[in-house]
Structures are given as C-alpha cells and as structure tokens.
C-alpha cells in the first residue's frame, strides 16, 4: 500500500497523472496536485527564465511568482493549451515585467556553482571544460544582447526544443511568424557569435 500524503492521495499516484488531470485536481482545490506540477515543470521553466534574464536569483524569484500566479489563476485555465505552454507564457511575461521594474546589473549565471547545472552530463577534460565554459559565456552574452522577442524564441526553440506550434501558443503569435522571427533571431545570434561559428566550421 502506497503512503498517503497530507490530502489522502497516494504519493506516487500524482506523478503518474498527466498535466491535464493535475490541473483538474488543482481546480478542485487539491493543492498537492499543484505541487506536483511545480516539481514537474520548474527546472525547464527556471532554465529558460535564467537564460532569458541572465541572473539566477532573479530567475528563481520570477519563476516562483509565475507559479504562484498560475495557482491563483488556475480556475481560469480552460485547458485549451498545455499547462507547460501556459506556465512558460506566465513566466516570460513575469520576467519581462520584472526586468522592466528592476533595471539592475545582471549577475552572470556562470558566477555560480556547477551543482546548479543539470546538463550536459558529459564528462570533459579540464581544457575542454574551460573552453566549453568560455563558449557558453559568450553564447549567454550574445543571447542577452538580442531583443527580448528574439531571445525568447531562440530559447524556446533551441534550448527547450518546443515546436513552432507550441512557440506560437506561448508567445501568442501566428505559426508563420514563428519561422520568420526565429530565422531573424538566428541570423542575429550568428552575427554576434561569428568567430565561434567560424571555429565550429
């Protein structure tokens, strides 16, 4: 018999439920289901927001607020889109608002400990690791120099691997626009990373 949580729900049961079912349970005031949604999506959302902001502390604050807002608006969630796209949209809107309200110097995510990094888990020798870190730093800097819209779309596609349809849903733009904006953003990023791209060749 599986142990029950504080709300009488078997602990393992929630992990097996799809997002839609968890959302329905949240809408029935089963708060434990929302905890499961947070656990399930927080890393991906945090990762995208942290790359978007370039600041891990701000990202943590933004993501926490985004989940709390999502919980408060959970009754308004009709299920027309996936919970993941909905929480991304809330998180990016929160991040844009946050950055506009708090214009402060960003603390690079590379000044923090490595234990915050989830991937890649490929073992590398110290030289390669140093080169890799340098490249990542340059890429992050290039990302931060992009416009917010371009940065969002590149992170959603190339970092998070969302489809055009999902990106259109998150950013609330037509699917055709996704391709053109993504093409433009990549060209912009390519121009900022020209030296690295040349070495990659």
């Amino acid at each position, binding site marked *: 018999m599986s142990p029950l949580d504080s709300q009488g729900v078997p602990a393992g049961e929630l992990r097996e439920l799809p997002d839609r079912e968890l959302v329905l349970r949240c809408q029935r005031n089963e708060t434990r289901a929302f905890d499961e949604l947070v656990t399930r999506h927080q890393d991906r959302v945090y990762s995208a927001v942290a790359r978007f902001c370039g600041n891990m502390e701000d990202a943590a604050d933004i993501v926490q607020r985004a989940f709390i807002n999502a919980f408060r608006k959970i009754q308004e969630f009709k299920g027309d889109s996936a919970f993941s796209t909905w929480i991304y949209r809330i998180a990016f809107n929160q991040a844009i608002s946050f950055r506009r309200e708090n214009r402060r110097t960003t603390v690079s995510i590379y000044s923090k400990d490595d234990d915050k990094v989830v*991937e890649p888990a490929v073992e590398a020798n110290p030289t390669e690791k140093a080169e*890799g870190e340098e490249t990542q730093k340059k890429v992050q800097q290039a990302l931060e120099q992009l416009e917010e819209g371009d940065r969002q779309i590149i992170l959603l596609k190339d970092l998070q691997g969302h489809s055009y349809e999902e990106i259109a849903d998150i950013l609330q733009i037509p699917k055709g626009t996704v391709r053109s904006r993504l093409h433009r953003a990549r060209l912009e990023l390519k121009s900022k*990373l020209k030296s690295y791209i040349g070495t990659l060749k």
Partner: protein
Amino acid sequence: MNCAYDKEKLTGYYDGELSAAEKADVERHIAACSECLRELGELKSAALLVRELPRLRAPLSIAEGVSLEIQAAGKVHVLASFRRKILWASAAAAGLFLLVNVMYFTAAKQRAPLASSAPLSPAIARIPEAQKAAPEFAEKGDPAALRMEADRSLADEGLKRRAMEESRKDLAGSDGKRAGDKPGAAAPKADALNELERSKLAGAGKELPARPAEAPAAPPAAPVPAATAKPAAEPAPPKMEAPKPEPAKDAVVEKAAAKKESEPLAKSNADLKAKVASAVVPAELPPLNCTISSLQLSKSRKTLEDSLKKMGVAAQQPPQPMKAPRNRDSENTLVLEVTDSQLAKLREELEKPGDARLMVTEPSDMFMSQYKSGGIFGRKEPVAAPVARSAGAAPKDKDAKDGEDAAKNQAEAGAVPEAKRKVTLRMVEVKTLPRDPEELQRK
C-alpha cells in the same frame, strides 16, 4: 548574398517544420546553391551553440515558496469560506428578524384601519352592547371582532334612540292617532294595569312575562347574532323591539295611551315614570374587561381605591387557588359591580392626573403589549392606531350626538336605575400611555 531564395525556408528545413514538398524544394535548391547551403550551416551552428548550453536546476526555494504560498492561500480560502458562511448566516438571521417585524407590524396595521373605519362610541355604556351583540368574541377577547360587532350594534342603538325620541314627541303632543295605531292602544287601561302587575312580579324577583299585545321581545341579555343585526339604513320602527330600552319605552308609550283614553288613570307623566322606574329592575349587563394602563401603578391604584370608596363600590380580588404561585396579575386585578356611569366616572378620576388610562381591552392584547414592552424596537410610540377603544373617547359625529341627545332625553323622561355589570379591572404598568385612536388619527 545574391540568391533570392526564401531563406526562412532554410530555418524551417533545419527545424523539420516544412511540408514534404517544401522540404524537397529546399533540398533541390541547396544542392545547387552554395550560398544557401553555407547559410544553412551557419544557422545550424548558432542553434547548436544555444542547444549545448547546460540546463539549470531550479533551486528548492521555488517549490518551497510556492507550496507555502499555496497553503497560506488555502487557509485564506478556508477562512474566506467560513467568513462567507458567517455572513450568510447573519444575513439570513437579519432577514428573518425583518420578516418577523414586518409580520408583526403588518398585523398591527391591519387592525388599525378597522379601528378608524367607523366612529367609536363616546360613552362607555355603549361598549357592553358590542359584547352583548357578539359575546362569543368578547369572551375570546378578540378586539377586532368585538369592535366590528360593537360598531354594528351601536348603529342600531342610535336608530333605536332616535325612534324613541320621535315616539316621545308624538306622545307629548295632543295627536293620539299614532298612539292609537299601536297594537297596545286597543286596551290602554288593561295595559296600564298589566304594567303594574309586571312591575310587582319583577320586584319579587320573577321574570317579566311578555305582554300579549306586543311582539315578544328578546331577553335583555340575550345575544343578538351578528348576522341578524339590522343595517343602519333600515327604518327605525323595527328597532323598537330591541331589548335594552324596552322597559322605559313601554312605560312611556303605555302611560301616554292611558292618559289619552282614561281620565282616572291619566296621572302626570312624571308620576307614572317614577312608578315604572322604581318598579323596573334592570337586568344585569354582561361583564366587561378593562385595563388601567398606568405610568405609576401604585399611585393609580390609590386613586382607584379612593374613587371606589367615594362611590361606595366594593372591589374584590378574584379568588386564587390555594397552592397557586404568587401571581402579580391577580394582585393587580379587581372585580367590581358598577354601573356604566360609575365606570365612566371612575375613568374620569383615574385619567385626571394624566398618568393613567382606562380602556376596554385586556392586558394580554397585542395592542397593550407594545406599551408594556416599549415596542419591539423599544420605541415609545405605537406603530399603528390601537385596536382597543378608549373607554371615554368622544368622537363628535352625528351618531354620537344622537346618542347624547337620546341619553339626555331618557334622563328627562325618567330616572331609570342603571344596570350594573361585572367589570374586571386589570392594572398594568406601562412605559407610555396608550393613545386614543382619534388622537393618532389627528397626528
């Protein structure tokens, strides 16, 4: 950079978001266009640089903070729902309270128009007629029904008295036709003798036999059903059969007939009236329940006792069971045997200081309860015209004048001894004195 090919397709091609036809088209083009092939490679490199960025693990503080916030919100939700329930319960209680009040005051208002719809009798002597007309209501203490019946009876009473006055005027003149038309005029002497016999029998405590020449009159205390009460518009003669003024009226009529027909028996009107008056023993009137509302009960009680002593009326307290608990209502209740004029005088004495009022009602009446308690909202003024009639309220309408004139004429015609009635007086201390219906209407 000279190729005009739609390079956005290269992005779509790399991301695998093109249709099969578009994909084939791109593949054909890049096979022939080195520029587009190179750009595709650069786009791919830029995308790979981002893709190779390490994913970050969310700090634990996020989940903890969210969880705490949710729990707090849940508590707020529970508190809010509890508060909502409390509010609903309060609203329901307030609504019920208002409903009860509305029902209470609506009931009072429904009685008020009845109280003011018909003029009330000025003299307390008239009130018992109402109880006589509808004893079943009077016994039940239903003031509204009592009032309706009383008003109906009082209208009849006015007509009766008017008729009596007319007949008296006729008899006072020399015209004997009217008296001769009456059935009793055929044998006036015999009637006069019968009258004397009847008075002797009555003096001996026996019941008066009905005279054969006249229609049998109902016993004086017999209740007249409400359904048979005559409307005010009917002519006066049928009202002559009404029970109460019968002895005096008969005496006057027969005496006049005797004077006209037979000289030896034609004594003065006054002599015969005196004989008849001394001979006729009035029947006892039905009991009456009255309430003395007083601001200072002890003072009013003393005034009452003094007045009773002055009038020579003995008051008794109603008998109480031996083992009954102490009952203040019984202590404040007196049972009197008084005439109506004595009662009117008593009322005058009591109300003279201005801190008491004698009314024909019972303390248990809802009308009285609002004065005892100060009203449901503690208000000092009654919300509607009181249902009970004032014992001495004297509306100056036509009927009232008629009644006064009739009473005056009756007094002139002869001093008929007044009937006594059993009056139960209940004394109640009130916060404000009940008001007359007329006084309220004036306001």
